[in-house]
């Protein structure tokens, strides 16, 4: 009888998941990489040709791509920073005990339940230039005189889109951080109090180190999500005005499905994948050196 070593058993247990995952993802990934090595545009079926890495080299002279790369980078930076800051603050508050904590905790989960498309729709009605709630609110507070078209300026559209995205992704980060906070042994704080450590000192010396691991996970997942962000932007601005919110996912969908340029579209997709990978590896490596990460 075949002796079941740990390795054999482990692969047996991973078998079903591996089959499903790799059968359904490996082929599409391989396919899209293969296509990215070709000049392939549906509208030019006879001109399909293997061109090696030319699609990738062409990216460096492609203003649309470079522009959207900048936009995407900034978008990821803004969204991830805002999410991490807000989520940390919210998680810290939720970790305190005060009346109404349960309610706030429930509220914190609300945006999570909202599909990205609905999120985009919601913010669109809020930012609406003619009837929007934001205009109504700011007018009644006396902060503006007349209704503004918030999404019409490039900077306005960019930051408000990022804002809408943060609102949607915040709960996920809060849950992870809250879970991290809940594992900190309370006696650590008591000990620190005895040592008369101040609030900030306690945060730096106890809370932060314990939070590093969940923070890492939040950073990786939020970075991956915001590199891929599409739904909210698609509904809210469609990439405009001009190309102010034309992040790479939006450009990618247009290139592949509207312009039917699959070669270039696949190359775009691979660049996103690589960027996400590099950034994630960067996070992991940084924390690994600090000794706070292990698989």
């Amino acid at each position: 009888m075949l002796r079941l070593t740990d390795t054999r058993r482990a692969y047996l247990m991973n078998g079903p998941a591996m089959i499903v995952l790799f059968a359904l993802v490996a082929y599409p990934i391989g396919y899209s990489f293969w296509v990215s090595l070709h000049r392939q545009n549906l509208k030019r079926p006879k001109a399909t040709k293997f061109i090696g890495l030319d699609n990738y080299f062409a990216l460096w002279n492609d203003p649309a791509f470079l522009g959207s790369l900048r936009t995407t980078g900034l978008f990821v930076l803004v969204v991830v920073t805002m999410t991490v800051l807000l989520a940390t603050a919210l998680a810290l508050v939720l970790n305190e005990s005060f009346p109404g904590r349960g309610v706030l905790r429930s509220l914190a989960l609300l945006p999570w339940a909202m599909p990205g498309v609905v999120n985009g729709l919601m913010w669109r009605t809020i930012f609406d230039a003619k009837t929007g709630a934001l205009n109504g609110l700011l007018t009644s507070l006396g902060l503006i005189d007349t209704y503004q078209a918030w999404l019409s300026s490039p900077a306005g559209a960019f930051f408000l889109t990022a804002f809408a995205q943060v609102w949607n992704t915040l709960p996920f980060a809060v849950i992870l951080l809250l879970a991290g906070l809940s594992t900190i042994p309370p006696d650590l704080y008591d000990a620190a109090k005895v040592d008369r450590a101040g609030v900030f000192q306690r945060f730096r010396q106890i809370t932060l180190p314990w939070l590093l691991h969940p923070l890492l996970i939040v950073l990786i997942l939020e970075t991956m999500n915001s590199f891929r962000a599409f739904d909210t932007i698609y509904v809210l601005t469609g990439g405009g005005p001009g190309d102010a919110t034309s992040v790479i996912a939006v450009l990618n969908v247009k290139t592949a499905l509207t312009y039917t340029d699959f070669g270039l579209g696949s190359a775009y997709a691979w660049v996103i994948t690589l960027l996400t990978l590099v950034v994630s590896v960067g996070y992991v490596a940084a924390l690994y050196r600090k000794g706070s990460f292990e698989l």
Partner: protein
Amino acid sequence: MDRRQFLRAATIGTAFAAATPLLSACGAKARGDVVTLEGWDYEAQLVQQNVDRFTRLNPDVAVDYTPITSAQFIQKLTAEFLGGGGPDVLYMYDDSLAGSVEAEYLRPLDGIEGVDAIYDAVYPSNAASMTYQGKRYGLPYYTDSQALVYNAALLEKAGITTPPKTLDELEQQALRVKKAGVLEYPIGLPAQLADTAAQWLWALVYANDADLFDDRFQPVMSASGSAATAVFEWLRHAALDTRVLDPAAVQTLPVPLDNAVMAGRYAFVLAPRYALRSYNNPSKSKVAGAVKLAPVPSLDGRTEGTVSNSRMYCLGQHAADVEKSVRLLKYLGGFDAHGVPYTAKFWFLQRGLGYPFSALAKDPEVVRTIRTFADPIVYGRLAEVARARRIISVPWYAEFEAALQRVAQQVLVGGTSPADAVQDLDRQARTLAQRYA
């Protein structure tokens, strides 16, 4: 097997090569018995009504009609045809015809009985827009042209009685409306990014007897003193200096624009003629009766012109039962047993969609209906001076149109100067032409 063939097999073939038996099995069920019809979702319920009438008249044909959200219509077609599927009969924008033919989505209609008669009966520009490289691909759905649409009641409040002839007058009148406190932003435009052409922008250029490309499809928008530059200058001025053009224009899609007009929130918009059917319909519009048509203003008031567009029905490359599909196609885009273009007339009477058949202009029912929503003289004149875009016959039109809309938005929000805008478009057009050469 050379590399090219190998690639074709590898990229498109492998996915379902393994499952060919499955594919043919389910293909047989889906095809043949039922004619599939796909279109963007304009008035899907009316379409279904009309299709139901067809199946009553043709009991041997079952039709499966699927409306697709207009914003995703082209993208879904891409996916379907790439997968070797695609509907038997489908709607098509004139903008997308060239690309769809090049991508081998469509089957030419030449030689099918009755098609010649249809092409003889439609306006020549309409026939031309359904023809690509000498072959006929579409039967007409509707054709319409852009107009300056104004709300006479709002203009009257500012003491204005005649619509503007030049862009300068338009801006001045809008300024009077604004200063009279009638509206903060009297001019509206649907300048949000979309898959279909920014007709309003083309109309502004065409009003000057000018174009963005010459007859050999070389870009001319950046030539010194070009109409395109002047139009961009005007847009910038109206949006940022006199501030009569609604800054929300860059987020406005056609339907919200219609709603705003019908709520009395704009004094001037650029819109297709058929929009007046709704604008002047008291059950839909608060300003019914006050909305009027005018020619598209030009720079100097001496030239006349606007852009026309066509929508058509096409035959899918993979249509299984060609005879039945063609019967549906002809029902939608041809004549009935009495020689009347039933569906085209249906759409005009129901929603005012411009008729492609020239004979309908004399149809008493049509004439009567026009009078209910527009001045027949202006209505007819707009059709006479309208031109179709010839550049839509290049396979890179979709990319150029997207660039045009982006650049127009940048001009409107002050992100780029008109001079840079036309340079940018010129460069992009040349790059695209080269890439597709």
